[in-house]
């Protein structure tokens, strides 16, 4: 694949952070392509319908904003972006809504930061922070786009692109906590794929019956 052809959806970064194999199964092997495709089509459709903006107490809010970052080869959507006139500059703040609760790993922060990096490139602004809103806790959690998070996001974007460019699905490594919550476990078969004796050996044992 040509380097410049590889545009990674922002959602792939989250998949990659969860499990590199899951990311490859979805974005390379296109498992459940039809289902995902229709699902994504529907989401896109809903998003396109939803696209809009509103003005409240000096805050202008845009919904379902299409995003891209050429430098990192990313594309996606921002749920909500708030624009506010500060003292000297216009403040731009992406806000992402999550159904669940805050997670131990940084996937949500990375996704949000990726949105910020897209917005910074597209609008030539600096975005110091954004927010995650968790449905279960009904809390809004501010996220500072500090150097560490930016670096992490850029690294993950680069690794995800490399994975897609290579076109090779990483081996399964079975980790109960991670795999048992993975929607692709039936396709991935992590236990059989990671811990099996060579097939010839297995077959020989079968044939002895």
């Amino acid at each position: 694949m040509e380097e410049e052809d590889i545009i990674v959806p922002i959602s792939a970064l989250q998949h990659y952070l969860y499990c590199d194999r899951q990311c490859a199964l979805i974005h390379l092997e296109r498992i459940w392509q039809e289902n995902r495709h229709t699902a994504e089509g529907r989401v896109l459709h809903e998003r396109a319908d939803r696209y809009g903006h509103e003005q409240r107490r000096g805050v202008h809010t845009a919904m379902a904003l299409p995003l891209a970052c050429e430098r990192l080869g990313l594309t996606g959507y921002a749920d909500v972006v708030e624009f506010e006139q500060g003292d000297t500059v216009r403040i731009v703040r992406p806000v992402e809504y999550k159904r669940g609760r805050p997670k131990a790993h940084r996937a949500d922060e990375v996704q949000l930061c990726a949105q910020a990096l897209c917005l910074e490139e597209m609008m030539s602004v600096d975005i110091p922070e954004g927010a995650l809103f968790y449905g279960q806790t009904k809390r809004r959690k501010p996220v500072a786009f500090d150097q560490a998070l930016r670096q992490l996001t850029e690294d993950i974007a680069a690794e995800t692109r490399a994975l897609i460019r290579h076109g090779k699905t990483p081996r399964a490594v079975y980790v109960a906590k991670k795999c048992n919550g993975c929607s692709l476990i039936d396709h991935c078969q992590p236990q059989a794929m990671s811990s099996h004796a060579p097939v010839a050996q297995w077959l020989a044992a079968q044939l002895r019956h």
Partner: protein
Amino acid sequence: MRRLLNTLYVTSEGAWLKIDGANIVMMIESEERGRIPAHMLESLVCFGRVLVSPPLMAYCCEQAIAISYFTPNGRFQARVEGPVSGNVLLRRTQYRATDDPERCVPIIRHLLIGKIHNQRAVARRQLRDRGDRLHDADRRALESTVKRLERIGTRLLETYDAQVLRGLEGEAAQSYFGSFAALINSEEDEFVFSGRNRRPPRDRVNALLSFLYTLLTHDCRSALEQTGLDSAVGFLHRDRPGRPSLALDLAEEFRPILADRLALTLINRRQIKAKDFSVAESGAVLLSDDARKTVLTTYQERKREELTHPFLGETAPLGLVPSLQAQLLARHLRGDLDAYPPFIWQ
């Protein structure tokens, strides 16, 4: 484990299928004759003059539900599918592998080991279950088949030439079908069997086997295509226009278990009788409409039987095994597995 969804077989001449909200509805002469929830459907198979409405077709294409058309006698005619599914990289890997003898041979070997092991298991089961009631000649024939298949199995393991492997398969088939008559418990000579013949089948047992092989090949084809493989490009079966070679490859391991055993059950339990067939002037033997329905129902039931998948170690309905094997083949082609683990029926 993934769910086994329904295959809807429509055998009623003049049936008209349409989608109505979340249901698939069958109309005959403007009367509703059947209704199933659309999300329960995995594949739609039409025999004879059956019409599918364009909106239902669109729905099926979108949901990756295969629609296939067969003649009333089970000859494949056409298939409707949406945009090509799966991953182009996997298909390219498949094409490279089928072009490379080094990669073909181990896959062919394992496919055939699976098939021959399963043939042997069918013969062994008859000896175990009915050995003492068999005629001496039948018992001896089966015993010698079991031994011969075992020897062929060992030779398969040591063979590194695709042509020799194919030859061994031919030998195994000759031996297996040579004693197949001993698996038929019916005393009547309506079900005499003297070897496999097809296109057209010239006796009742062959007519039944051919029909079941058609159903099995169809299922294997859907399984492969859902996995993203090209069902037309095979290892054991070489390319031939119009032939689903990889589906035929995959079907090999399942023939003894899903098709042969089912044919034997139908005959031995007298669910299918001599009068369920007609003989054409040319000598071709055809299955009657009603009998076809019996076969289809029994086939669907058999697919629901649960077993433990030998390689994955998980319970799965028999009908899902072609999909699991297709996945394992894809995993091997991608390099996840060092070889293709065949389906070994215990």
